[in-house]
């Protein structure tokens, strides 16, 4: 009896243990939710700004952009409700004329998924710019896919026919070849593969040159105001 009492004194009841853990969990949950809520607007804005900046970077001479979506066999201006997949970005010049597309692609790199955005001029069938949106490639090696300016410059004037090909550094001879990175061959090839896959995916979905969706004024205003995520007026229903 006495030993039992002693052990009862030493050992708090399991209810008490569970309660103290539950209480700590509750407090922790509240703190985590508040920090999540507090930082969410900044984080979303950062991501939207990064993407918008990237679109303007990969498409030269572009002053406004709008989201385009492939829907029911036709590329149209993205409606508010549309899902994020199958979305690309149309870039337009100062007169509102169509310049080119910014297409996002993703695929496995050396360590984790690489997200790439590239600018494409359909009339000339050329890639004119490339930005890495997200990657966890080895710092100092794989991250040269966005830090090595010589590699990035490969994509400034790159023919897409028949297919982009990574070749050993310094041996680029054809307009569709790019100089790879010494020591980061896998990452460089991953970028090329991602772009090729995204291009194959979009090849038949893009309208013939000249028939691109027109720039809607709402989106130009939204882009100017810095609300990259705001979609233009809903596309006409069908």
């Amino acid at each position, binding site marked *: 009896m006495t030993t039992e009492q002693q052990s009862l004194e030493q*050992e*708090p009841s399991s209810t*008490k*243990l569970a309660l*103290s*853990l539950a209480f*700590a*969990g509750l*407090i*922790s949950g509240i*703190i*985590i939710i508040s*920090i*999540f809520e*507090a*930082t969410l607007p*900044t*984080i979303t804005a*950062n991501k939207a700004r*990064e993407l918008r900046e990237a679109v303007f970077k990969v498409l030269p001479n572009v002053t406004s952009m709008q989201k385009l979506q492939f829907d029911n066999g036709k590329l149209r201006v993205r409606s508010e409700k549309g899902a994020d997949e199958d979305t690309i970005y149309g870039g337009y010049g100062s007169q509102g004329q169509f310049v080119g597309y910014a297409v996002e692609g993703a695929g496995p790199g050396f360590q*984790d998924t690489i997200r790439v955005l590239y600018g494409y001029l359909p009339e000339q069938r050329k890639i004119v710019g490339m930005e890495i949106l*997200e990657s*966890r490639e*080895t*710092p*100092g*090696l794989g991250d040269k896919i966005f830090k090595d300016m010589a590699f990035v410059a490969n994509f400034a004037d790159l023919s897409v026919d028949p297919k982009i090909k990574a070749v050993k550094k310094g041996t680029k001879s054809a307009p569709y070849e790019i100089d790879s990175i010494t*020591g980061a061959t896998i990452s460089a090839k991953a970028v090329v593969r991602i772009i090729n896959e995204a291009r194959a995916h979009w090849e038949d979905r893009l309208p013939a040159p000249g028939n691109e969706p027109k720039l809607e004024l709402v989106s130009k205003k939204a882009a100017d105001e810095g609300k990259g995520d705001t979609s233009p007026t809903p596309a006409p229903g069908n």
Partner: protein
Amino acid sequence: MAINIKDPSAIQEMMKGLWRDNPVFVQVLGMCPMLAVTNSAINALAMGIATLFVLVGSSALVSAFKNLIPKQVRISLYIVIIATFVTVIDYTLLALVPAIHKELGAFIPLIVANCMILGRQEAFAAKHSVGFAVMDAIGMSAGFVIALFALGSVREILGNGSLFGIDLFGAGFEPWVIMILPPGGFITLGLILLFFNWVTERKARFLEQVVAAEQARG
């Protein structure tokens, strides 16, 4: 419980983390972030500061509530406290410095699993007053930052020829690529540990000689 900063024992609690009880060089704790994110000086520094925030916050809380925390579930409670601080710093970095957050990637959430932090709660914060616990946490994280930074700068200088992204040697330098990869981390850490132990041993031998000389004279 406020303590006087000039209190010599408080200063001692802080200083011991820098050299005598350095978490990395002496206790060999927290090796995962140590090896993983030290391939450049700036990453090492950011990781060190994030760890400092988590360790100081958790130590203060654990020490403040040490009498309310039931012994049987203390480890789980410590982890809950640590994980909360880690989540806070994770989102804060993502919002304020997205570029650095991108570089550190998965290693910020992994601060939870840094045994140095849990070790300090169990070994120190749970037994001392808040003031001492905070001083100890500051000292330990400062020691951790020094260690991370030492490794990070050596690896960046040799592996990339730069420090904080600034080129040091010009085009003629051929980077030792291996230093940036995991083996480089192990090699550098091994050499630094070797140096550290060598210094400690020499110091001990010197003290022994001094004592012996005094005894001989006396």
